[in-house]
């Protein structure tokens, strides 16, 4: 396959970036998208040029590192797929592919396609956990969980924190991410004591961190590699509303 790539190149956070054109003649349809970029980088290194920086780690679709916007689509054209699991057979010979970093004020570009997603960690720090005293683990069967809650909590827990929801949201909102965490913990018995304060604290942190507000457009769900349901945002709203009305507080 012969491909023309237009890739966002930006030397440093302060530098002014631009789209740079590259032509690759020898792309195999069985390559993953990241392997295709590896091939490009090998060529760039041989030519003595600066390789394209991009984040990646597990390359099996579970770490959430490899986010990039491919032809206007976070993680590329295939639904429920991370960039590393996207294969070149989904493109045609002669295609031009635009590759850009996640765009959000909360995700500043570090270099080329690498963005700093620490803002999501900040949201987690503000409530994405349960507080338990350490000690020997309790008997797992001692706390019954109904099937529907277990399934919904598990669906929400599959969020890998890749930030595609933010990248695709017309408002630059991390609502689906925050909602996934709130739903995951809020549906399980262990998450109940902090359920309301978790929702308001995580939302408050998100609001502080340059993220926009949610308008229920649904672009986040469309690009989410794990298909986190839009209804998890309703769960977050529900918990926030309850906490707002009752005045729940954590201290």
């Amino acid at each position, binding site marked *: 396959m012969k491909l023309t790539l*237009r890739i*966002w190149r930006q030397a440093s956070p302060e530098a002014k970036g631009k*789209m740079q054109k590259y032509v690759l003649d020898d792309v195999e349809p069985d390559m993953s998208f990241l392997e295709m970029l590896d091939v490009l980088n090998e060529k760039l290194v041989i030519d003595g040029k600066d390789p394209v920086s991009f984040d990646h780690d597990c390359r099996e679709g579970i770490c959430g590192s490899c986010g990039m*916007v491919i*032809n*206007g*689509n976070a993680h590329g*054209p295939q639904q429920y797929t991370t960039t590393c699991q996207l294969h070149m057979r989904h493109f045609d010979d002669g295609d031009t592919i*635009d590759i*850009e970093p996640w*765009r*959000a*004020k*909360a995700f500043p570009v570090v270099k080329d396609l690498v963005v700093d997603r620490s803002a999501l960690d900040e949201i987690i720090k503000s409530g994405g956990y349960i507080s338990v005293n350490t000690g020997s683990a309790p008997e797992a069967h001692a706390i019954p969980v109904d099937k529907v809650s277990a399934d*919904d909590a598990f669906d929400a827990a599959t969020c890998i924190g890749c930030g595609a929801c933010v990248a*695709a949201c*017309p*408002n*630059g*909102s991390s609502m689906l991410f925050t909602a996934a965490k709130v739903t995951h913990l809020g549906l399980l018995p262990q998450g109940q004591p902090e359920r309301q304060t978790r929702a*308001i604290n995580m*939302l*408050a942190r*998100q*609001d502080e961190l*340059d*993220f*926009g*507000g*949610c*308008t*229920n*457009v*649904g*672009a986040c769900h*469309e*690009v989410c590699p794990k298909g986190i*349901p*839009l*209804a998890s*945002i*309703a*769960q*977050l*709203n*529900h*918990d*926030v*509303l309850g906490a*707002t*009305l009752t*005045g729940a*507080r954590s*201290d």
Partner: protein
Amino acid sequence: MVITPQRNIVSRTWGTSVGKKTVIATTGAVFLLYVIAHMLGNLKVFFGIEAFDAYAQHLREIGEAIFGYEGVLWLLRVVLLTSLVLHMWAAFSLWYKAKKARPIGYQHRQRWEGSYAARTMRWGGVIIFLFLVWHILDLTTGTVNPLGGDESAYLKLVASFDRWYVSLFYILAVVALGFHIRHGLWSAIQTFGANSALKQNALKTFAFVVAAVITIGFAIVPLSVMFGLVR
């Protein structure tokens, strides 16, 4: 023991993005109920001038014994105006926040941008507001009505819609209203936390049907005047 001062319910609500959305949703629900009542009232035009004008007069006399002449009407106007201020204030504040959240856009246009209704909520809302100003000047105060303010409501309506460009503007505005309700109603249900993965499609269909009924219910009046059914 450290006691942190607890914020009151107003600042708790107004202080978060979801709180502001709740304000938009609640005031939107007020508008929706009003718009449905307004549409049903409009349809009285098909029962002739006496029925329509009697209805308009009745609106001024409801609860007269307690609230006085036009008392209920003014109460309603105050509620609607307050709702409008809150609705737009919260929406503009979130619009500004969203603008700031992505200072540098994408070179390649986003492929999935959401429904037309969702994308046009903000500017659509502005258009509906501008229409509202015209609408009140035309049919409430009569300032821009060919017959002026003191004529019968029925005759003012016919005289206004006899101008094709006014009818066209009105129809476009109620279509914009339909789109606004189509996304707004579903979005409000989601904001109140009543959505679930199982119900989502049903809720979106419900919002679509409500929006379609309201749009048709309003548009049928100027269309009937244009085609000579209402004279």
